[in-house]
């Protein structure tokens, strides 16, 4: 099962490597990973998308919590949450294809952020499924490059991940 774990960790050198190392050391999957500072300079927020059954996820969260640099953790997928991922995608677009790509971008509420004579770069935001769907919707052999940020998320309602 796909799970999104979000955590606050000390903004210390080596903290990220401890988290990533834990996953490889215990052979847990990282499907995506995103990390950046928060409004509090001493903390970073890391969101990792992983998969596994209940027992595995329980072990993952327990081991993450054991890391000295991890301050607080939430399994977002346990309750209602909002998740987003951002993608920059460059597609080949010449002739009639240019209008088609633009239409697709509109449907997916993407924005064209760069343009050349033969290619369009589009920014799309949404759930991972939506980004997958956008890639799948492109004509065959037209996708030149894809850069995705990985999932980040936040709980719905008043619930917050904070100290």
């Amino acid at each position, binding site marked *: 099962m796909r799970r999104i774990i979000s955590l606050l*960790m*000390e903004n210390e*050198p*080596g903290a990220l*490597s*401890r988290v990533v*190392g834990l996953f490889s*050391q215990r052979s847990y999957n990282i499907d995506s990973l995103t990390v950046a500072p928060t409004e509090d300079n001493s903390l970073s927020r890391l969101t990792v998308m992983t998969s596994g059954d209940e*027992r595995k996820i*329980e*072990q993952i969260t*327990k*081991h993450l*919590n*054991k890391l*000295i*640099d*991890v*301050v607080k953790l939430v399994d977002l997928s346990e309750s209602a949450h909002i998740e987003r991922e951002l993608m920059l995608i460059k597609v080949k677009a010449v002739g009639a294809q240019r209008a088609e790509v633009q239409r697709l971008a509109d449907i997916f509420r993407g924005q064209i952020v760069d343009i050349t004579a033969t290619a369009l770069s589009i920014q799309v935001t949404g759930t991972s499924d939506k980004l997958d769907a956008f890639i799948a919707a492109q004509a065959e052999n037209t996708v030149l490059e894809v850069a995705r940020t990985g999932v980040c998320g936040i709980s719905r309602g008043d619930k917050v991940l904070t*100290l």
Partner: protein
Amino acid sequence: MEQLSGGDMLTRALHDEGVDLIFGYPGGAVLHIYDAIFKQDKIEHILVRHEQAATHAADGYARATGKPGVVLVTSGPGATNAVTGIATAYMDSIPMVILSGQVESRLIGTDGFQETDMVGISRPIVKHSFMVEDAADIPMIVKKAFHIATTGRPGPVVIDIPKDVTDPKVKHPYEYPKDIKMRSYTVPGKGHSGQIKKAVEALLGAKRPMIYAGGGVIQGEGAELLTKLTQKLGYPITNTLMGLGAYPASDPQFLGMLGMHGTYEANMAMHYCDVLLGIGARFDDRVTNSDTSKFCPDATILHVDIDPASISKTVAADVPIVGSVTAVLEEMLECLEQSQQAIDSEALETWWQQIAKWREKDSLGVTPHTNGIIKPQQVVQAVHRITKGDAYISTDVGQHQMFAAQYYGFDKPRRWINSGGLGTMGFGFPAAMGVQLAFPEAISVCITGEGSFQMNLQEFATCMQYNLPVKIICLNNQSLGMVRQWQDMQYGGRYSHSTYAESLPDFVKLAEAYGHVGIRIENLGELDAKLEEAFALKDRLVFVDVMVDPEEHVYPMAIKGGAMKDMILSKTERT
């Protein structure tokens, strides 16, 4: 405020933390620190002959005393040599602080001479690690390191120290922090009262109860309370390899060690119990055997551990309790005191009768040879007799380790010093040195094999330098016994790289070359007298080379893929 250099701060901080003994080996990156050590007299430094031995010696010291072991090594090879010892301590949850030198800050990342990324290399085998970036942080980092290493589930902590940080010319104000608060690190204390109550109810309701106690009981100083609880209940108890001594082996409620080479009665009682109290143990594969679905099929499992990640890791717990063993045991005893529920004494009586039948198997019975050939088990039994069961026994890894675990019979915690989790050959001798330094008057014995011993024999020199009268009992079967046993059992007796009789050194001469005493025993008839002679030399290191039967196997032995009740009992008998 007092102004000190980084090197002086380090020795002062160690002293303020209560450290009086460290094990180490100098080198370029730690020369400032060694100069600081030279100029003070509060901390004694033991110069080992290999950094791996420094970690094992500190480990032995920690296991025997309960205090953290402290190690000082240089950068690069000094640090990497310490890795095996750190991993050993990590697997067995031993409190240890490792100070490793590092190249100067400006050289980090440039592949400088003797540079290695110690924080990176040690990351998966430490509880935590620090890189000192500013000498002013030393007191706080040392305080945090000892706090983390010794609390909760203990473990090793590395402090990596670039050379410039300890520069004697640069001084900083020194004050040792009194206490420490870390927002990201809290230590579990009391267990959940509701869960404890549930566990006690389950225990009282049991018809075939079993208590399974591990090294956590020893680490957490819970042996006395566990003994009290077990005797109050009158239930059978088994200890893991790491837990030996958590319950007195000579008590009739003790069924012996369980697991891979556990006794028949302990493993049978585990398999057929209906309520299992696992405490300070982690249900590892040497206990459960490989297929956990066959483990204790009828049992309600109560699991007490300080580490939440140990609970339901391999075997799902019905009643999980996270807390320190002492806090949980105290509360269990209180709960028991207040409970109106009575033990089902009739069922318990039947259960003990069943156990008595299993005991009749006498799975640790030794049939002596009539031709004078010594069985390794007889040596351990003789050591037990001569030391009156009151020695500190360190071991290496292999058959001799299992024989020592099975036949020494530990009545007290912290007497059994062995690398259970990592299974590190070369551990025993340096560990026995650490024990001897901690308790100069005690009998510190290293039961070893001629294979393991050769992995750290250079420590003969350390023992000479510091007058450590360790008694080394080498069960010499002229082969890597446990490897050979498996090759006998699973590889058609093809001894691939497990024998080397023709190239073994003369251990008696070897010991003598280092200035120690060497004794060889070749015949059963001389075993007791010569061992007594060795132990009578109280102020000398004695290496006793005992030639034992190379054909001997360790039994009982779990059958791979089976349940706990599935055991090989001898070369000709299976359950």
